[in-house]
């Protein structure tokens, strides 16, 4: 029987790797009986989806036209130095 400490570790691991059957079984069993770990499990899943959405949003922001111009200028300067 997992303690809450072990169960929270398995709930976290489940987001990063495939649990073994035995780990999966013990985690499910613990979650069935423990509302606190169910809460933790819901929280970390929500956190993960929120971060995915935020990431998706920020990836649409991109570089501004000014930033692109500034990159071009700096690269040009560096390339000119190469030639001399």
């Amino acid at each position: 029987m997992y303690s809450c400490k072990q169960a929270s570790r398995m709930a976290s691991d489940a987001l990063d790797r495939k649990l073994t059957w035995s780990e999966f079984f013990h985690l499910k069993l613990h979650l069935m009986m423990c509302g606190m770990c169910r809460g933790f499990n819901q929280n970390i899943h929500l956190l993960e989806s929120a971060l995915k959405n935020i990431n998706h949003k920020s990836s649409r922001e991109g570089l501004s036209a000014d930033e692109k111009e500034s990159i071009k200028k700096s690269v040009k300067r560096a390339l000119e130095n190469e030639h001399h």
Partner: protein
Amino acid sequence: MGSNKDFLLVEGWVEEHGDYLHCFATTRLNGDREMARDMVQETFIAGWKAYQAFEGKSTVRTWLTGILKYKIIDHIRKQVRVENLADEISRDPSSDWFGSDGRWHESPKAWGSSPESLCENDNFHMILHRCMAKLPDVQRQVFTQRELSGDSSDAICKDLDISSSNLHVLMHRARLSLRACLNHHWFGKREL
């Protein structure tokens, strides 16, 4: 190579791949846009120097991403020094969260928000960034690379040169801390 023609090539890269590369770098550098811009800039310069060696076996974008990735890993490895990692692993913060019997000190409860509504909420972003900033360096690096960049666990272990069990320990700690911080500064407050 004539410099004018070369420069047109690089200008094209900036327009075509600049946003993509910048996003790739930002998500791997804890959202540091400035740093990401510098790295993208260096990538274009390095790409230009190595262009003759580019054999067209992959797309230009994939090739440039490879150069950028190498620069980012180099930077991250310098930040996440070996000593930091050893310290962080040997520390056991579990008594912050659990009693000696392995039970929670403070009971987590389900949060009542949708991920979509959180995404649109700028105040939530601010709190989230503050909570992430409080994580120890090594945890923050592993966590952002996993959750923000969506890199696979294997790729992160390889990049940072850590074992997969170390990765899982660090992710567990980062999630415990972030969850508690967000609960304290955001979710707990709203539900009261």
